[in-house]
């Protein structure tokens, strides 16, 4: 049976394993292009962002989701046929240990680390201790994994009870939610620009330039937020709905955009949580400070880490994120754009 348009299951299945380490987002870009074929005009920019434009007569609305996934780059090949690496994004060396890395040309390798020789204790390694096991001798390894080769942590979509897990869910889950929302939307009262950003794992480089030339009046960023481990007293719970980001590193919600997200959530009957954190960041910070500034709100999908490469996301949160974005896209803009409103308020507290 053919799944309905914008089914998250099928989108996730296509996006999660798609090749796309930071700066080399070829596979995921192709997957997104194919699933959004016929929806609007697409183009690619110098840094690898995929732009989708759905022209409309309303204000310019920018919808952003990062599409790259954690990767590695080979820094040198060693005498034993192993290769030293540097991490491209991701969440630290310890969580990469044991992961399989796939390369653009189909080569595979495993991430290992220099274990202390006589120690039974395993301490958290840092990136300089990581290396790739290639299975080849030095000459073959140097040929197949030359310095500068970029690979991605292999991602397989898994399901545990109500939760999805995969190493690339950050931010393929966000990209899937945005794609689903576009596919499910009817008429959109905006001039809608969508950017699936590249190189977000390297400091939101794609997001820095994506809004150039668009000068959006409002931006919505959809991205995963790791909200802590199970034992923490995190105020955010998986399964209780998407978060609206109030503050994180480099980002503070714009009052106008925040109000809009809140109203949409209420209208869509989507329960929401709030994200307030000092550390951690998404593309939202880079989007909002582009050019003369973009009023921006972050919609964060709550996620947990596993201690390994995988992240966990609650399927219900993801569905509700789509509902929220669909409603946001359907809600006609307020008559006055942000700059003209006399006294923007943070209502509803």
């Amino acid at each position, binding site marked *: 049976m053919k799944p309905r348009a914008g089914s998250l299951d099928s989108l996730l299945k296509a996006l999660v394993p798609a090749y796309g380490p930071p700066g080399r987002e070829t596979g995921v870009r192709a997957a997104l292009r194919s699933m959004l074929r016929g929806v609007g005009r697409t183009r690619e920019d110098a840094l690898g962002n995929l732009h989708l434009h759905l022209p409309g007569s309303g204000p310019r609305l920018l919808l952003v989701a990062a599409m790259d996934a954690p990767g590695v780059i080979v820094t040198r090949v060693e005498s034993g046929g192993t290769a030293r690496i540097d991490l491209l994004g991701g969440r630290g060396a310890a969580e990469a240990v044991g992961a399989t890395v796939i390369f653009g040309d189909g080569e595979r390798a495993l991430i290992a680390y220099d274990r202390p020789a006589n120690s039974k204790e395993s301490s958290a390694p840092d990136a300089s201790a990581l290396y790739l096991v290639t299975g080849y001798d030095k000459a073959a390894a140097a040929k197949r994994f030359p310095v500068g080769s970029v690979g991605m942590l292999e991602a397989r979509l898994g399901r545990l009870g109500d939760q999805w897990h995969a190493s690339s869910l950050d931010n393929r889950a966000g990209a899937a939610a945005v794609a689903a929302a576009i596919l499910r939307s009817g008429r959109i009262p905006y001039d809608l620009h969508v950017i699936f950003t590249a190189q977000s794992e390297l400091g939101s480089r794609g997001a820095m330039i994506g809004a150039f030339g668009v000068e959006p009046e409002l931006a919505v960023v959809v991205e995963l937020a790791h909200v802590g481990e199970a034992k923490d007293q995190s105020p955010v719970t998986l399964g209780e709905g998407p978060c609206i980001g*109030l503050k994180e590193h480099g980002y503070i919600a714009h*009052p106008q955009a925040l109000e809009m997200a809140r109203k949409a959530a209420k209208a869509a009957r989507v329960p929401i949580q709030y994200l*307030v954190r000092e550390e951690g960041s998404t593309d939202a910070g880079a989007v909002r*400070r582009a050019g*003369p500034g973009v009023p921006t709100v972050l919609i964060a999908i709550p996620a947990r880490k596993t201690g390994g490469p995988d992240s966990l996301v609650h399927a219900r949160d993801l569905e509700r994120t789509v509902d929220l974005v669909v409603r946001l896209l359907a809600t006609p803009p307020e008559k006055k754009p942000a700059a003209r409103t006399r*006294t*923007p*308020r943070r209502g509803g507290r």
Partner: protein
Amino acid sequence: MPRLKRPSPRRSGQLEWSTDEWLRHLTALPGVAGYEHISRSEIERAFGLFADKVERDRMGNVLGWIHGTGPEPRPRALLAAHLDRIGFLVSRVEAGGYLRVVSVGGFDQRTLPGKEVVVHSKPAMNAIFGTKPPHLQKKGEAEKVLPLEELYLDTGMPEAVVRRRVPVGTLVMLRQPPVGLLKSRLAAPGMDDRSGVAVLVRTLQALRERRPAWDVIAVGTVEEEDGQICVGARTSAEGLKPEIGIAIDVSHGDMPGTREGDTVPLGGGPSLCMGANIHAGVFDGLRSAARAIGLPFSVEVTPANSGTDAMDIQIASLGVATAVLGIPCRYMHTGVEVVEPRDVDRCATLLAHYLVSLEPEWRATEVLK
């Protein structure tokens, strides 16, 4: 951008306010980064008393314009003082109704235990950073500084009330009224950078009488204190594309225990920063202006990073000729930031004098060929 209506000056008598009154007024207005809009109307009112027009851009920066007398297109000088001050946001409500907060802009956490705060819920509530009495402490406990994560706020209210009224993200400000010290010095939280905003108001007032050839835009910028990037400075400079940008912010005033060259004297007039963030021509212009009117000043060396809005203004647009004017201030990022109102006046006098002296044809880009 909308032009805002000029407030009626009669209503408040603000036209005649002394700098001390302005400082007391401005430091009483709440607003951390991202929450500047809470007090925006007061800032707009203050600018509107003297500016030719007041605007608000989409990021929330407040712009007070003085139209120059030179031929169009006129070069622009941007004066920036940041509107945000340091404070906290509620991050969690815990069993018992205790509140945990995250800091927006780095409050000196050593100064927080036992302090009173205002929780800007609806309606607002007062609270205290809870402390453990010495009787209950273990030996040696008092020797450790409590990090913010271990501090909590106590409103004294039942948990149910707190949960109903205080959602995550609620603004929390230190509750510390201004205190007058000897030599008419004033201690208050938020002198960083509301004393700079007072300089903007005073400068607009001076320029209303003595017109510059350039357009001057006094900008109350948003979000200086949060993160590595001064968002309001960057976006307003990108939008205005000025030739010159001057940040007005607090400088460390002389305090016991500091080293030669690390501070500037309180009551010694503005400090002129010097370093890579500063355009040599603008620095020279400000220094000459100060010398010409016999105004005391000090020079502060900030080799690579001035730590102000000027960092982001300088690299905005096609590059901006920047300078930093410092208001000497003791005990920065505490609830008792001490400023001498006379220094605020001198900053404004210097700025007005310098801006009026700018040649209409000066441009930051030098064409050699």
